[in-house]
């Protein structure tokens, strides 16, 4: 994300002083957990409400006694201190009663937890991969896979445009699932730890490099469900939302075949020769979704954190070194190996773009076939 300019900071200060609200849609004051649309999110919600009420009533009793005592037993009202203390009976009572209440909570909690951890007999398996800062989804056995990143324009973040209804909770490619099917997610990460969370689908699970964690959900209602990465994962942790669209079986199958058709088209595209202008045009799109978060849209990077690409030795030097670092990343830095994330055509396009944008004028281009050969 861009660093706000001084002018924007000033404008915000003015807004703050006037106590103006945010622009765009103002939702209602959401107070409570969402019951959600899966059996598990519903049981989590029921447990939450149960325990909230137990705490509420215990609180009423304890705080009631405190407030009564504060009002009645004060010296200014002539209260004389009695000197009673130590009562084993009382201590036993207020040890045993909470213990019994806790057992009452533990029983339903255990039942729900056992159901949550039962990932067997799934109807659909999806591999979820966390990246800095986007999600990758692979439909296992279907040959369908794609990246899903934030689609809110930067101008809305910096306040140059009014914020839309789903500000920061919208993506380019949502995860699409059929309703009433047990969907099992196998969750991992390629760089740092992330956490996959859609509140209405019930619960979250960390995406950890080297681990494959599992969770499942069964959406019972068609709709669009939004969530966010829940584990601090670096600079753009707040900008990697999750959107899940639950469709009925027929719509889902239609979506799936459209994905497969698009896949075939991309595979065919990788086999043909591309013109430089087409590569640069495609490269700009890829750059903005996969590279701009660190290296910035203008290629200047962030000094000290992310290197600039304008006139750098890498982007204006030999192309093999450039291809190598994009495909294999750089160990010990945030630079990820993009060979695992991007298709041949996208890697070729983005490198071509970087070598010919922002005044970089190398003039060469990289064909998808070269990337294929380098794999």
């Amino acid at each position, binding site marked *: 994300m861009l660093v706000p300019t001084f002018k924007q900071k000033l404008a915000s200060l003015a807004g703050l002083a006037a106590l103006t*609200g945010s622009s*765009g849609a103002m939702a209602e004051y959401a107070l409570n957990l969402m019951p959600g649309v899966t059996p598990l999110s519903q049981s989590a919600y029921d447990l939450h409400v149960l325990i909230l009420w137990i705490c509420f009533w215990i609180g009423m009793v304890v705080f009631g006694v405190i407030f009564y005592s504060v009002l009645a037993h004060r010296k200014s009202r002539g209260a004389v201190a009695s000197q009673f203390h130590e009562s084993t009976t009382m201590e036993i009572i207020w040890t045993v009663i909470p213990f019994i209440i806790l057992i009452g909570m533990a029983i339903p909690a255990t039942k729900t937890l056992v159901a949550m951890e039962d990932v067997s007999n799934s109807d659909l398996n999806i591999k979820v991969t966390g990246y800095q800062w986007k999600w990758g989804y692979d439909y296992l056995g279907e040959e369908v896979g794609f990246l899903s990143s934030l689609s809110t324009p930067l101008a809305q973040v910096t306040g140059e445009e009014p914020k839309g209804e789903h500000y920061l909770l919208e993506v380019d490619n949502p995860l699409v699932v059929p309703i009433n099917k047990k969907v099992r997610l196998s969750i991992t990460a390629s760089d740092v730890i992330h*956490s996959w969370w859609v509140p209405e689908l019930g619960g979250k699970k960390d995406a*950890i490099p080297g681990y494959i964690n599992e969770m499942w959900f069964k959406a019972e209602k068609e709709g669009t469900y939004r969530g*966010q990465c829940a584990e601090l994962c670096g600079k753009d942790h707040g900008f990697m939302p999750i959107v899940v669209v639950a469709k009925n079986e027929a719509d889902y199958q239609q979506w799936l075949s459209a994905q497969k058709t698009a896949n075939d088209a991309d595979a065919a595209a990788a086999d043909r020769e591309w013109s430089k202008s087409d590569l640069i045009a495609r490269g700009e799109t890829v750059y903005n979704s996969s590279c701009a978060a660190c290296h910035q849209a203008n290629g200047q990077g962030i000094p000290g954190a992310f290197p600039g690409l304008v006139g750098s030795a890498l982007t204006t030097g030999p192309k093999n070194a450039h291809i190598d670092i994009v495909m294999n990343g750089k160990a010990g830095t945030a630079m990820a190996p993009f060979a695992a994330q991007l298709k041949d055509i996208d890697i070729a396009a983005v490198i071509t773009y970087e070598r010919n944008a922002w005044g970089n004028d190398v003039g060469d281009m990289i064909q998808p076939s070269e990337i294929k050969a380098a794999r």
Partner: protein
Amino acid sequence: MSTTMTHDDHHEEHPTGLSRWIFTTNHKDIGTLYLLFALLMFMVGGAMAMIIRLELFQPGLQFVDPQFFNSMTTMHALIMIFGAVMPAFVGLANWLVPMMIGAPDMALPRMNNWSFWILPFAFAMLLSTLLMEGGAPAGGWTLYPPLVLQTGNAFPFLIFSIHLMGISSIMGAINVIVTIVNMRAPGMTLMKMPLFVWTWLITAYLLIATMPVLAGAVTMLLTDRFFDTSFFDAAGGGDPVMFQHIFWFFGHPEVYILILPAFGIVSQIIPTFARKPLFGYSSMVYATSSIAFLSFIVWAHHMFTVGMPLTGELFFMYATMLIAVPTGVKVFNWVSTMWRGSMTFETPMLFAVGFVVMFTIGGFSGLMLAITPVDFQYHDTYFVVAHFHYVLVTGAVFAIMAAAYYWMPKWTGNMYNETLGKWHFWLSTIFVNVLFFPQHFLGLAGMPRRIPDYSLQFAEFNMISSIGGFAFGLTQLMFVYIVFQTIRGGEKATDQVWEGAEGLEWTLPSPPPYHSFSVAPEIK
């Protein structure tokens, strides 16, 4: 007797000016240094919190970039935990433990000096990272790899400053234990010790047990980064989750390190102003010990979402729920102490009663967080942020404020300004709830923690929370004013200070002599 006199006279020739504070081995001077250092760090960490709340005042990025925002949350936590709350408690221990057990000073005065003077260097090093290339640490105070390994030049400074803080804490803890075990006045049996001394004794053992674990964990981070080890790198056969297990094996006892001395403080103050003995002294001691024991077997409740086996999740859920029992015992004992007392509400009592009420709210949300299947929804949201700020701000910090008002007349010989103190309490209490209560709603509605920008349904409560935050922050300047005003002068305090106060520290003059008890007092 005459030899005792000359011996004392010799000690009274202490240096003045700056060298008094640099070379001091006196528990009161060192206590003062700790407390003032904590106050300074409270302001620095508070300023960072103001930046956080300013950016979160409205949706969108207005003031800081996300990387700096993450640095602020990380540094705010490190400074408040290791720089403000822990040194404040050590400062209180320094001032109070010798006076409460009838000792002349702490057992190991030179180490005492050293353990304090490490801290300014540790925090200067930590704060200097703000100016470094790549920025201050931004991976969260929990330092989870692999993210923390992406820290820029600040990384080794972060690790070494944590090492220094750990060394300081361990030395402070050793000193407290040795003092309490060896220097109690004749007749001061363990079960006659004031509860503040008891809770600090247990806290000191927690510190000794866990700080080396943290030191080990951060050293492994250091070798992973610079010496090609792969403790936490899956690609090299390591395990990033192992760090979390080690960290929280330190981290959970650490949160009790931050609250047990607060329990002790409140257990001293409530009986004084209720003019009635503590309801269950021995059960308070046993409850504190049980909490300390349980703190070692609940760590993984901070990491329910890492994908533990079902049996592991069940064990940590049950063990965590169990903590509610001894904690409940403590709350019930405080309430029973107030019951049918003859209460007055000077500022320390206000803060103590505020502590009991608001710490209990934090306890309730803690119990909710213990329920694993629902924690999958609460985890890493603002619900957690609200929870730990209720136990740490209205818990630990309120108790420290209560202690400052309660013992300041003893330390300085001057009464603080009661009217200002009451204003400080009421404004703090109102605004701290405006600040943190709406964060429960934000978390339940789905707002993750540690994000610099948020979607629009969270706008209203964030704005309310920020307003509460700014007002709470400003209110604390009152506290700074009151403290310095009291140090400079004011109505003279009597030796007993409070009508209902009991304990050895109140038998000394206000302010007390340089060496607390040169002759051991007699304990009935």
